[in-house]
């Protein structure tokens, strides 16, 4: 009894917005669609909502055809990245709108609206005008409206992206609590995000999308540990995973004349040949006995430093757990832990991972 999509394709003009997308979603679970801008996340959510009709493929809910059900008869709710509310209605009426549409009893509406407003921390705001609220509050109203509906499918399209950093952190925390406490086991929760950190924090399953395709579906742990392709490894890490073209030959990993490492145990099954090696920025460190690199840029971010280094055309980004002054052109020795390396074959698929994934 799930939401199942098979081979959905949507191509309004020349380009695919959805290209052969398939997935299955179970009730009572949270799914995060992770992908960069224009990956097709919003299109997918709108297709599930029924606002867009795919040209190909099927969408079924509980075994019933879902694609032909008109939007207004689907039991869904959606929160947009823009703060979309009804400007002509008060906060209370905004939240009550979908319930009134269902012709519910006034006393029931009252209870449901009040409890939804309490859940999002907007008690006492019910008579306010939408325009009198801040962006974060407006987004809470939108969330309250979607919660009060108790919809079967709750779609959240990058709901935090237009908020400032502090508020985003705080709301994300609240979202997680609301999701776990308020959303019933009959509902499917679909959240889209460009931020891998957000996707990992929310937990649940992650569906990685890129260029209108689904690249990988799995738990946050699976996607983090064993990204299926190079593209997934780049999308699901922030900063993107470093990639190095190189060869395995004679028990050595060789990227260029100076970058060369011993083959780690988890690569033992790999045959000699050409590979792309991936290493997370957090696994790039400054080490006395490391490989010499030139510093190109050092960005300080909070208590961390993003170090961009280069050696013979190979660039790496390291995430150093300290604030340190480097100037462009400085020489620095970089330690690469072979045990943390990923290997992708020539078609871009995962060949070996430090967590045991791959072939």
């Amino acid at each position, binding site marked *: 009894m799930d939401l199942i999509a098979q081979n959905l394709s949507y191509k309004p003009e020349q380009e695919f917005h959805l290209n052969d997308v398939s997935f299955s979603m179970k009730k009572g679970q949270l799914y995060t669609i992770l992908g960069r801008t224009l990956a097709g996340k919003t299109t997918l959510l709108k297709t599930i909502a029924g606002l867009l009709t795919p040209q190909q493929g099927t969408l079924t809910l509980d075994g019933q055809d879902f694609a032909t059900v008109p939007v207004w008869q689907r039991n*869904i709710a959606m929160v947009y990245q823009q703060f979309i509310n009804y400007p002509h209605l008060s906060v209370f009426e905004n939240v009550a709108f979908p319930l009134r549409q269902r012709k519910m009893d006034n006393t029931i509406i009252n209870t449901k609206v009040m409890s939804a407003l309490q859940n999002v921390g907007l008690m006492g705001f019910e008579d306010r005008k939408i325009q009198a609220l801040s962006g974060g509050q407006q987004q809470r109203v939108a969330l309250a409206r979607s919660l009060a509906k108790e919809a079967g499918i709750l779609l959240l399209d990058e709901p935090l992206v237009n908020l400032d950093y502090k508020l985003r952190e705080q709301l994300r925390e609240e979202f997680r609590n609301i999701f776990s406490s308020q959303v019933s086991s009959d509902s499917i929760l679909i959240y889209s995000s460009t931020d891998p950190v957000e996707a990992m924090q929310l937990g649940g399953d992650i569906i990685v999308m890129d260029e209108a395709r689904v690249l990988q579906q799995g738990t946050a742990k699976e996607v983090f540990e064993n990204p299926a392709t190079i593209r997934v490894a780049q999308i699901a890490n922030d900063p993107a995973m470093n990639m190095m073209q190189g060869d395995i030959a004679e028990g050595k990993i060789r990227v260029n004349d100076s970058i060369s490492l011993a083959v780690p145990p988890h690569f033992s099954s790999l045959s000699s040949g050409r590979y792309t090696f991936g290493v997370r920025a957090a696994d790039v460190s400054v080490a006395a006995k490391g490989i010499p690199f030139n510093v190109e840029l050092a960005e300080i971010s909070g208590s961390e430093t993003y170090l961009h280094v280069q050696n013979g055309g190979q660039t790496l980004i390291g995430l150093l757990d300290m604030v340190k002054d480097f100037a462009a052109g400085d020489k620095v020795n970089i330690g690469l832990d072979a045990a943390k390396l990923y290997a992708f074959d020539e078609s871009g698929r995962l060949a070996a991972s430090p967590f045991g994934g791959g072939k």
Partner: protein
Amino acid sequence: MTFVYRTLKYGFIAFWSMFVVAPFLWALSTSFKDFNSVTGGATYIPWVDFEPSLEGWKVLVRSPAQGGINIIEPYFNSIFVTCMASLISIILGTLAAYALSRFTFKAGFIKNNDITFFFISQRIMPPVVLSIPFFIMLGFLGLLDSMVGLILVYIVLLMPIAVWIMVDFFNKVPREIDETALIDGCNPYQAFFKVVLPNSIPGLIVAGLFCMIFGWTDFFFAFILTFTEVQLLPVAIVALNSSITPWWSLSASALVSVAPLIIVAFLVERYLSKGNLSGALK
């Protein structure tokens, strides 16, 4: 600095106000004059400068047999025709504009923007070009010299304005609002009437105001398409012209004919000046 700025600002506002208000005051003053007061040089204040007379106003209500023009019937005709034509134009124009803003139409190379332009292109033609076709069509339908005929012609003239203003307005209303309404259980008609329309009141008022101004001030078609049965105010006023120009009754009729628009402008000013014209939706 601020003193100079403020003096300049209020000086300019005072100058501009004079520019706008003076003709009205002049017309008001003239409407109470008689032949001698008008021809005897510039005079401004009644009782001080000249002896006021109600003759100019009386002409407007006197029957033609008594040398007047009796604008009462034409006045109500004009109000009725303008209101009906504006109302129908707004209703049809708003629906058309919503469709043009939200749905994609395509017939060969013709797309939404072309259709919108076709509406406006009605207004590009000089009215003279339309007069003969309209005359022939209304004649064929037996609607010459009738209110219904005038209303139909005015709808042709006014609806493009409504469409143009409302397309622009709806394009600024985020589509996501309609989509949210659909998601919240509204069918497309409910989404339009329950959500989009209530948020479009400022646009409707602007469009309505424009329609009323254009409809109310039209002389050309009212003159061409009516004879004796139905007379509209602008045509009736023209009958005042005679060998001696009656400045006093012309002034009175000018004031009377501007009055409804001023009243409407005051009534809707609240909606226009609140600043929620574009800021209602963000």
